[in-house]
């Protein structure tokens, strides 16, 4: 936490946890998905109870479309997703989650099922607690690289095997596990999820 978590973030209302946090959970799926057009979104707890009033549905769909929490297009995200040919299904669950603001997003990519469970833990901060049944504790995608086309299997210690299988050798790697120098030396194509900058041919 720093002072910009206190005066900030700059965001579309009405709720830091139900709107801004939901955008971030959706955005995380945007980063992981590729060509998928059909997403199933399940809301739990307080998300399930009040999502219409807080527009959590618009927020999470906006995130999947690639909008960030301060993007005014979030207001019309549902309409926009339909225009772009997406099919976004909203489901509410009675099941009691471990945190009141929980969402599960599922989609298929190259016949592989993807499932991301995220929680909005307050002040617009999120925690991704599971990716494809693998437990995670991702609080910020900023800490990760997406590395593509590692056909020679240079990266040994990636975090998510499932993603590698589904995306033809694409891996999600924590920055602690690999240095920038290493990536450049080995001429790997990668995206820095903090700066969103592409390196290589991606």
């Amino acid at each position: 936490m720093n002072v910009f978590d206190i005066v900030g973030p700059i965001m579309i209302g009405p709720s830091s946890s139900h709107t801004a946090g939901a955008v971030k959970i959706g955005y995380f799926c945007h980063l992981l998905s590729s060509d998928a057009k059909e997403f199933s979104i399940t809301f739990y707890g307080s998300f399930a109870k009040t999502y219409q009033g807080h527009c959590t549905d618009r927020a999470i769909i906006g995130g999947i479309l690639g909008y960030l929490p301060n993007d005014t297009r979030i207001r019309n995200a549902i309409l926009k997703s339909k225009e772009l040919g997406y099919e976004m299904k909203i489901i509410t669950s009675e099941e009691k989650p471990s945190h009141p603001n929980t969402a599960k997003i599922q989609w298929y990519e190259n016949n592989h099922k993807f499932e991301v469970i995220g929680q909005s833990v307050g002040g617009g901060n999120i925690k991704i607690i599971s990716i494809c049944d693998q437990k995670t504790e991702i609080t910020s995608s900023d800490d990760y690289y997406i590395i593509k086309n590692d056909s020679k299997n240079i990266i040994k210690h990636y975090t998510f095997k499932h993603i590698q299988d589904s995306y033809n050798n694409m891996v999600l790697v924590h920055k602690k596990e690999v240095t920038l120098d290493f990536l450049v030396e080995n001429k790997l194509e990668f995206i820095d999820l903090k700066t969103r900058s592409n390196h290589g041919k991606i």
Partner: protein
Amino acid sequence: MEKYNTLQEMIGEAEQRSVKLSDIIIEASCEQMQISEKTFLNLMKINFEAMRNSVIEGKNIEDESPSGLVGDITSSMLKFNESKNIFGKLFSNVITDALAVSELNACMGCIVAAPTAGSCGILPALLFPIQKEHNFTDEQMIRATICASGVGYIIAKNASIAGAEGGCQAECGSAAGMSAAAIVELFGGTAQMSGWACAHALKSFLGLVCDPVAGLVEEPCIVRNVSSAVVAMSSAQLALANIKSIIPVDEVIYTMKEIGDEMDEKYKETALGGLATTKTGTEINNKIYGCKNKCSNK
């Protein structure tokens, strides 16, 4: 910032070195974030400008909120201000701006959480009317914003700034405490006076529950943003007049946490108690969620 555990530690450091509270916050934040002072000030300027835009945009809202619960309160106040001046111009401007930003938030406008979206109307409602009335520069106002952010940091660290954890005292109360401390620094008060101002404001909100009708950040949140801004004004003036807080600020913050922890879950943003479950609150809830597609189809 991690090295400071209490507000009094920061105040002590500022007094000992004869610098402002904001100086201490800038120094500690740059150290924590590994950035230069120039970068830090530029980052805060971005949030400051976004707050200014939210005030301007809030006065020009044309839509109603997605729930249909609010939509014309700022315009009603602006109209009233044209014909009557009861408590002075600054007072009118503060309560109007608090309404404008909170209503903008309810209508999915772009705001700055300070410290949360639910309490986003308080700090900007003080900053911009005071700047206009007293001709402060942007640099001075950004300093005040920094002071507010550092005070909020300590509150978040030792209590909470989330309604779901501590009730409304943690959201609107914190925003009022942060703002009151900032106003004191702006008018040349000492760091200790900023601490008193924060304490005076927090004391006024101890025990306040978070009971939003239909779970929405609308009723009573918008009106509480207005009253919190007014409490920040009175708290700042009390401290500037050298009226100290008999209970030290860190003890007040601790008390807020204690009360928040003890507070029943139904009063912590769950919409299961308080105004949310009144006869009218329940009717509104059923009306909004009974017609499920209203929000989704827009």
